[in-house]
């Protein structure tokens, strides 16, 4: 038969976690309004989620070219994949032929992706 204290003890970490989480969150949320600077007149820019001094020039609903997104995403993809090449390049002698073959396979796959992206016209600015 489990004693009620045992049950509470078993759940103590979880209870502490929840109480701390709620407590800390509440404290920080309220501290901000107590200690934070209060402008005499509320400005438009201060209500924005990412205010950094200057009021934004464009509306939130502004449409921008999908090419920005595409190029940025492709850049990140290829950029991150080149990171994998560095450690292997540094230690190639130690790793031996196996690593060379592995990284060649990796580069071939990367190259396939590159050809695909290029031929599909994703690199052309439209």
């Amino acid at each position, binding site marked *: 038969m489990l004693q009620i204290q045992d049950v509470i003890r078993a759940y103590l970490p979880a209870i502490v976690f929840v109480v701390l989480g709620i407590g800390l969150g509440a404290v920080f949320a309220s501290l901000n309004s107590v200690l934070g600077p209060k402008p005499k007149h509320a400005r438009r820019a201060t209500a924005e989620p990412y205010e950094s001094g200057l009021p934004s020039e464009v509306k939130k609903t502004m449409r921008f070219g999908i090419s920005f997104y595409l190029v940025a995403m492709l850049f990140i993809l290829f950029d991150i994949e080149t990171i994998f090449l560095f450690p292997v390049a540094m230690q190639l002698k*130690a*790793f031996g032929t196996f*690593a060379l073959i592995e990284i060649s396979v990796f580069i071939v796959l990367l190259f396939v992706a590159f050809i695909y992206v290029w031929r*599909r016209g994703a690199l052309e600015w439209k």
Partner: protein
Amino acid sequence: MTGLLAQATTKGPPINWEALSPFIALVAGGCIVLLVGLARSAFIRRQVVPVLTLLTLGATAGLGVWQWDINEGIVANAMVVDNLTLALTMIFVAGGIAAVFLSWRSIASAEAGEGEYYALMLMSILGMLVLVAANDLVVLFIGFELLSIPLYVLCATHMRREQSLESGLKYLIIGSVGSATLLYGLAMLYGAAGGTNYGDIAAVAAEMADDTLFMVGIGLVLAGLAFKASVAPFHQWTPDVYEGAPTPVTGFMAVATKAAAFGVIIRLFVGPLIDATTTWAPAFATLAVITIIVGNVGALGQSSLKRMLAYSSVAQAGYMIAGVVVTTQLGIAATVFYLAIYVVMNLAAFAVITARERETGLGDDISSLYGLGRDRPFLAWPMTIAMLALAGFPVTAGFFGKIYLINAAVNNGYGWLGVVIVVGSAISLAYYLRVVAAVWMREAPAASTSLSAVPIMAGGSPEGDEAAYAAGREPGADVGRVVSEDFGEPSIITSGPRISQPEVIFVAVFCALVTIAFGVYPEPLMDVARDAGEALQSLR
């Protein structure tokens, strides 16, 4: 330090290239298909690319047969290629081949680009293979994502149709929640076991069975995999996604994804977690009951065939859990057997839906089947056989599938689960027979009563596009024409013109024949399933 590192890693992990060959075939095939799909020629894109996809799948299956009975860990024991992996590979390949045939003239593959469409399908199958071969938590997760991400895209390939996009987005969001849950669970298992290899987990499973961390890990992993297998109460996405996705993709998803999800459930739960059975089996058995009830009751009121099959797939998942919870080789064999016949039963139904979707303007509504029995025997019989098999009628493979599952359940003290399966099947008759009745006992609507369908067509509806595309015209090209015509003589009537689509009818008839063949003589398939069950040697 560097010297030590160098010494330790000079040799790569031992790789059995022969056992790895089915995986390599899929990777290479996927790359080739993607690149060939870039060709400008419409002939190459529309005909050569699907053929290359079929060749890749055929090669994968052939290499799998070649490696039969290998049963060993490959790539430093991170993956296991045994008869269970290979039997499931055959199921994935079968689902993939049927999906290629169904997609051949589909508008979805043309809109997304054939190269991308088929390459994504191959990558998804590769993910399934990796998933069921995984012997390591990290590999498991890679396989899980490789399976899921192409499917999210495939669901949305019918790009000009809002429902398809909605389906893809829904699947992406809910699938990501499932992935996150799974990943959290895997992290906890790793934390409890101190290693990611299944061997490390198996070593501690017995003593950790009551450990909170371990139990939470098992629970979260269970929930994450239940999302993929559409086990209630994690099934809510299933009807919406199945309905919105292009029908060939739905068919592929219904059979192959389910097989993959059950493959990994078997591999993980009946593998390293076998010593913690007392922890997870009651939960799993409860889920089975909930799933059977929710699936069967949910399917009753559906008029969309794809939604109905979605709920039916939920119910079938419930039946198959019964084969997993008993944790015997017999149970695993029964589950693999059921998965295999589930593929053919479902694909026959999806092939007929695809065919009718192209011929009529009714989409996947049950009324698209009206009057099939009288003038379209090659569509009517496969649908009838598929429905009867799903319900578990004798002389169809579905009967033996259920017999084996119930037998396995009863043999290991889960008699009550067997009873639930029987009750569930009884409920399921209501909606399966409704389809059969629609095929045989309803008249095809005459041209005069089909007027209401014409304005929908005239609006350039997706189904109209699908029909037009399959008939060889450009999508949307007939929009103006139908509008300008006198409504008294609609050019496309509801019962639909016959469109030449031999490959779809071939899939329907072939799957129906296989369903009957294994219903009369199930021994060959049962032998394969038994081999798969015996791959898990820790079991009785």
